């Protein structure tokens, strides 16, 4: 078990964003957090990266309590907004981020070429990020998160603004990473993307309303798609 979230709640003032979340994520799986925007997905993953603290409860990664600087090196995080320096070229951005993780010289060069290959941006390496399209920026952000070969990848809406063909190839990349034994946590509000995850956590109004493989969720609710399953769980919530 690589991630363990125990009784985590989060409040901003009086507003409760997360309520009593309990979740365990296994080594080597692709775990999807599915829910509408504003459900609390981003708040939850930001806690896992150490950018936010729970109001109650604890998050443990690799068996240690977050936040911890030692653990940060094992995590690759891609935020919802593209955190890139638009005045710089893609290469200069990646050189900078790689150096933060202690990558230098030939090793750094090699990794930059590898990740740019993975996100299919190799021919745009020396282009300024200002001249990148939205989808290209998204892919460059992903490349930046992969640079230091983290054990655990936490990706907040990684495929927003990326066309279906490219989305396929990026998911193929995710499966490659999984095959190498990496663990991925992906947030999404796109239902068909949820089908591609090994397991799913459904989040609504700060509550984790169901956890299971896409098939389990569908079977339990007698639905034919994840979308129907989500609605079925959400409906139960409303009746309470």
């Amino acid at each position, binding site marked *: 078990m690589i991630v363990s979230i125990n009784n985590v709640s989060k409040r901003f003032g009086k507003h409760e964003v997360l309520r009593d979340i309990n979740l365990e994520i296994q080594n080597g799986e692709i775990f999807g957090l599915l829910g509408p925007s504003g459900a609390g997905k981003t708040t939850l993953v930001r806690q896992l990266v*150490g950018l936010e603290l729970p109001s109650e409860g604890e998050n443990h990664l690799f068996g240690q309590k977050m*936040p911890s600087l030692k653990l940060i090196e094992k995590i690759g995080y891609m935020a919802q907004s593209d955190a890139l320096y638009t005045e710089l070229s893609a290469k200069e951005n990646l050189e900078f981020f790689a150096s*933060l993780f202690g990558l230098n010289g030939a090793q750094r060069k090699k990794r930059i070429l590898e990740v740019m290959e993975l996100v299919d941006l190799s021919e745009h390496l020396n282009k300024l990020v200002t001249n990148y399209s939205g989808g290209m920026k998204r892919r460059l952000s992903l490349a930046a998160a992969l640079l230091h070969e983290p054990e655990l990848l936490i990706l907040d809406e990684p495929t927003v603004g990326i066309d279906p063909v490219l989305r396929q190839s990026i998911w193929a990349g995710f499966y490659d990473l999984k095959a190498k034994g990496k663990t991925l946590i992906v947030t999404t509000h796109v239902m068909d993307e949820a089908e591609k995850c090994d397991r799913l956590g459904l989040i609504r109004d700060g509550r984790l309303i169901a956890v299971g493989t896409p098939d389990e969720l569908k079977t339990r609710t007698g639905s034919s798609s994840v979308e129907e399953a989500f609605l079925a769980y959400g409906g139960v919530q409303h009746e309470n």
Partner: protein
Amino acid sequence: MRIKALVIRIIRQFLRDKRTLAMMLVAPLLILTMLHLVFNGDNYIPKVGLVDAPDAVIEKLDLDDAKITEYDSLRSAKADATAQEIDGYLVFDGPMPDHIVLEGSDPSVNGAVMKWIQQATKSLLPAQGQMELSVDYLHGSKDMGQFDYFGPVLLGFFAFFFVFIISGISFLRERTSGTLEKLLSSPLRKWEIVIGYVLGFGIFTMLQATLIAWYAIYILGMLMEGSFIYVLLITLMLSMTALTLGTLLSAFANNEFQMIQFIPIIIVPQFFFSGLINLDTISDWLSWLGPITPLYYAAEALRDIMVRGYGWDAIYGNMLMLAGFSAVFIVLNILALRKHRAV
């Protein structure tokens, strides 16, 4: 080295953004030139010493509109003038005024003292009309212009202003664009971020300080009695406080516009208390603000060097204060980053 990576990145960004670089380097020169061309003098209540003045004579003098101190030795009068306790003194030889000595570093004060002495001594020699007294200056000379006295303050002020705005907005953009979070989701320590910024911006700050000081002194011909190196040192130290204060306050702004709103609150008041307006003419209930502003110390030190020609002994106290401001702001910067990451 992570700090090195940060420094290299900042340099690269700067070189790409030619306009910001130009604003930092050229705008201060432009404004200094304009002020150089427009500045004019003003009024002030002088502090005058009377040396060896007989009581009978003092009674005859018109002592209104000045703060008078009486001395019985030249030495104590000169000591007070050097310490800027008085602006100048009138030396008597028997019942007659003999000569005038002025502290001399502020031309508007010199003017006020001279004017007052003329008025006050009129009654002594009504028949002979205008009296010619010789005038000595502790600092400066009668050729010193208004700009020579204000110059050092302006030099410091514009260095401060532009570094504050540019560093503040850069750090703000790092916050709003999400790149600060990206940095904080890497093993980069919080202090490394702050020091990286100080060093990365420090390079351009140094360039700016050198350019402004060189331009003001050698092109505009600002009065320069002391050493160029000291001017550079003080300007650089002041810019450091501007840099660290700018990045600190960016934590309390949500966008560029809010950063600009700090100008009337943080920048403009410093201008008033930097000695540009004589501190004695500011109400007591406001004048305490002076000593808590960095520009106050920098202006004093710059004037000591450029107008009075003093050296290290006179400026090191002010320099320590500036270093202290920077150190405090750096620590507060690191603490402010805790908002984004607790460890």
